[in-house]
């Protein structure tokens, strides 16, 4: 298990008294795409947000249990450092509206007050935008505002912004649910390329998407991790009856 990047054991999370993530134990390996699925309110997004400690930013939200990045306990690490190591892309594209495309990509560096030479910054911008499959489309308008882009382009800009920090893991919270089918497929295509260098954890409502893009799938139900297995195995022969019911559409 030396390739395990993120591991949780008996991990719990609450909103006030509401127990939303219950005793989750999971090990996520390097350079894989993990899909996290389950019905609304099953705790999948909360679990995702716990991984880079975004959960605790909500007043009243608490978490308990062990969650590790490699061998380090995430909840004793410096949260700033955790979020540098574990990037995140949100449901709705959220490029900073006051910044240009260029500045959006290096926003992580600027926000953190990391100074660097213009040339180095240019390299990071080009590399990140290329990795996010956006370079060709925007290379002539780098200094325009990011909000002029289409929804799909904006989302890829947000992915570039996350990649620019060179994280170990990138979390995606329903990254395509606000996008049209063409933009969705371009983002999905991107996942295949990104897993060469990063570990991706993707929360999705879309079962076809989970089947298309992921190596492994985790199924959450009522706050519990019901099943975690190879995606093919999960979609063809799930071991738990709840997983089977969900996949066959008997409830959602």
């Amino acid at each position, binding site marked *: 298990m030396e390739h395990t990047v993120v591991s949780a054991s008996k991990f719990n999370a609450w909103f006030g008294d509401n127990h939303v993530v219950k005793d989750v134990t999971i090990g996520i390996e390097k350079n894989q795409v993990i899909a996290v699925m389950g019905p609304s309110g099953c705790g999948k997004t909360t679990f995702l947000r716990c991984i880079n400690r975004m959960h605790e930013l909500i007043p009243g939200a608490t978490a308990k249990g062990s969650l590790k990045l490699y061998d380090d306990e995430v909840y004793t690490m410096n949260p700033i450092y955790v979020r540098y190591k574990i990037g995140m892309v949100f449901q709705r594209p959220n490029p900073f509206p006051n910044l240009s495309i260029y500045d959006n990509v290096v926003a992580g560096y600027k926000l953190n007050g*990391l100074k660097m030479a213009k040339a180095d910054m240019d390299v990071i911008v080009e590399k990140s935008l290329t990795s996010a499959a956006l370079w060709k489309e925007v290379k002539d308008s780098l200094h325009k505002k990011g909000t002029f882009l289409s929804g799909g382009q904006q989302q890829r800009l947000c992915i570039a912004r996350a990649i620019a920090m060179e994280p170990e893991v990138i979390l995606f919270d329903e990254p395509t649910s606000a996008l049209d089918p063409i933009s969705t497929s371009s983002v999905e295509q991107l996942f295949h390329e990104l897993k060469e260098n990063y570990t991706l954890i993707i929360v999705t409502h879309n079962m076809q998407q989970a089947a298309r893009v992921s190596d492994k799938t985790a199924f959450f139900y009522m706050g519990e991790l019901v099943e975690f297995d190879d995606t093919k195995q999960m979609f063809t022969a799930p071991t738990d009856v709840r997983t089977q019911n969900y996949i066959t559409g008997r409830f959602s």
Partner: protein
Amino acid sequence: MKNKRLDLSYTQMKWETVFRRILIFMSVILVLIVIGILITLIIESMPSIKSLGIGYLWGKVWDPVANIYGAYPFLIGTLLTSFIALILSIPFSYAVSIYLGEYNPKGWLSNLLKNSIELIAAVPSIIYGFWGLFVLVPVIRTFEAKIGVAPYGIGIFTASLVLAVMIIPYAASLGITLIRMVPSPLKEGAYALGATRFEVIRSVIMPYTRSGLFAGVLLSLGRALGETMAVTMLIGNTSTLAHTFKDLIFGPSNTMASVIANEFTEADHTVYLSALIELGLVLFFVTVIINLIGKRIITRFTNS
């Protein structure tokens, strides 16, 4: 690179702590100032509290020459002027909020109106006092003669009218902002069901902004309770309580703030001065109590 980044994150956290402490420090200073004012008021009104006792609050006579001090006439004066002003101002501030928030949120006319309304708050209160004396008082005098009350021209009614104008912008500008912030999907949902503008305002916008609009009204009321200059110039400055309701509304009177403004320089012995300061203390508590009641009402609105 990695360790450098980790070191940086600790520096960032340190600054975060410093920043948070600065914010807490600033906020605590404000609380201390309020508490300090309260303590000063209490200490300074001690001579009056000791010699006059609790009866000060409902004593109906205020006669400094005879050394008799009762706050009741001013309490009534303050509450009456403020609430009459509030009732007169509410239709205007709601109408303006709805018109500029929903019907005409953009364009030069909208901007002109919004800026003019905000200008109302920027006019110094002494100017309202002057305007009231020279323009409003003669008009009111004629009106009073017609309805058969003593035509003083000055009094609670006149002060309330001017006060009503002065407090409109507080409720209106908050109302405009709130109504503009109502999410358009919500409004469109109602339009798509065949609702008219009026129906959307009544059944979607009003329920959504109700507690916020009420908070604006409360802001107006707070301003009305404490307003001194314009009221002092228009209220007539009589410390005796009128006997009939008509005389009370249309005759000269006094508010807590106007008595303090008028008599502070004349207070020539300890108990007199202290009685005036105690009036300030009472005004402080009246404002606090009305604000607390308002907050309770807002929470009730928001929860239901």
